[in-house]
């Protein structure tokens, strides 16, 4: 595939690293856009997720809503909002925030739901106030799944943020559009590869955060469980006996 070779050449071509629209600047724009989108989506989705997870109420509604939000075609929303508010970053922000909300919301409420009810009940029984239960029990225990939600939201936003270039001189999507329209496929593919690399980097970062925020005690449970089921039992193979001697 020589166009892939061309694309790599395009990426390492020093000419693309200076002047307006240089690769580093586009990368930064893209990253900043992704970050801000996640921030706004989190500000909306996390409180809702907390409430749903905490009270156990409204889950059905949340599932349906986030299903519905997931179904909204980003391109359609982008053009519609752009028609209302004009060119610039406003419309991409709206469209991508809508895209980012469902995974974050799901992460938030599953995170809270997954917490052992017994632990919360016990916390209340020993005299924690509702606020203390939230901050000392629910948030630390729910965080890993919440970060997981943010992680998949980040992945989607990075990939889809290319659409921002439809209505603004912005981000890595510029390479895709101008490459497409001028049939400069090296540029278009190169831009895509950059997007994928950026997504890869974000994946790595979020995976690390996720590992760090898993409370130690919970992490070790998982380790124990993992070790306890090394493989599925197979004929002629050793059984997976779950009883460990702690």
């Amino acid at each position, binding site marked *: *595939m020589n*166009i892939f070779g061309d694309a790599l050449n395009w990426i390492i071509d020093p000419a693309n690293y200076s002047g307006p629209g240089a690769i580093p600047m586009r990368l930064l724009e893209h990253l900043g856009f992704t970050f801000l989108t996640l921030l706004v989506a989190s500000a909306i989705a996390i409180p809702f997720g907390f409430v749903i997870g905490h*009270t156990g109420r409204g889950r059905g509604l949340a599932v*349906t809503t986030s*299903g*519905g939000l*997931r*179904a*909204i*075609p*980003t*391109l*359609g*929303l982008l*053009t*519609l909002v752009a*028609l209302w508010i004009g060119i610039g970053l406003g419309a991409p922000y709206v469209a991508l925030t809508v895209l980012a909300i469902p995974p974050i919301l799901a992460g938030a409420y599953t995170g809270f739901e997954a917490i052992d*009810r*017994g632990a919360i*009940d016990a916390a209340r029984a020993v005299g924690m106030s*509702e606020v203390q239960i939230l901050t000392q029990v629910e948030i630390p225990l729910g965080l890993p799944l919440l970060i997981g939600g943010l992680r998949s939201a980040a*992945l*989607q936003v*990075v*990939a*889809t943020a*290319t*659409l921002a270039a439809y209505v603004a001189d912005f981000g890595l*999507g510029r390479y*895709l559009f101008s490459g*497409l329209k001028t049939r400069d*496929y090296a540029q*278009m*593919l190169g*831009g*895509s590869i950059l*997007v*994928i690399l950026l*997504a*890869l980097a974000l*994946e790595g970062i979020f995976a690390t955060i996720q590992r760090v925020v898993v409370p130690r005690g919970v992490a070790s449970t998982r380790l124990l469980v993992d070790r*306890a*089921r090394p*493989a*599925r*039992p*197979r*004929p002629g193979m050793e*059984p*997976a006996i*779950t009883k460990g001697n702690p």
Partner: protein
Amino acid sequence: MNWVWANLDLIRDRTLDHLILSVPPIILSFVIALPLGWLANRYRLSRGVILTVSGLLYAIPSFPMFIVLPALVGTTLRSPLNLVIALTIYGVALMVRVVADGLASVDADVQRSAVAVGFSTWTNFWQVELPLSGPVLLAGLRVVAVSTVSLATVGAVIGAQSLGSLFTDGFQRGIQAEIITGIVATVLLALLLDGALVAVGRLALPWTRARKSVRAAARLRLPVEVTP
């Protein structure tokens, strides 16, 4: 609303186009993800590789995917097959992890007892692991269905007719009603497929309903009151 009434057959045609584009990828991604997820669940090494690669597939922006794919698989740009393949790739990317997690979620005791009474690896997979991971698979499939329906609209940009055509056309002509119709119809179609999957799930996984009632009862057992 006027625009909708005046263009009912257009909406119907695009909805059908859309269904034809989005249903095969949903089914295909399930079928393809099954062995991959099984591999990922079974061996530690393959797990890392398969899950990372499939995660990355999801990071490919849809636009260039649609453009580059024909070069790789030799279809025409405009061919619906092209779009079906692209959507399948996204679906597989989502579904592989779900399958791996679903298989991992099957109670180890149950599996062990199945082996103990004489299930072979093959029958164990089809008769025990697969049905028992059903609820997780269904949940994943629902996400795949909804996002596939949504993504299929992007095909309009490269000339594959779908509900997405309503908003490229509406956009060019400045008819907001048409764009909104396109979005609403997409969402409805997604929810419809989602509902169909839930219904299929109810039929295919009858025991989950039984369990739910028990679990609800178990949850009630602890006298709870949120006293401030």
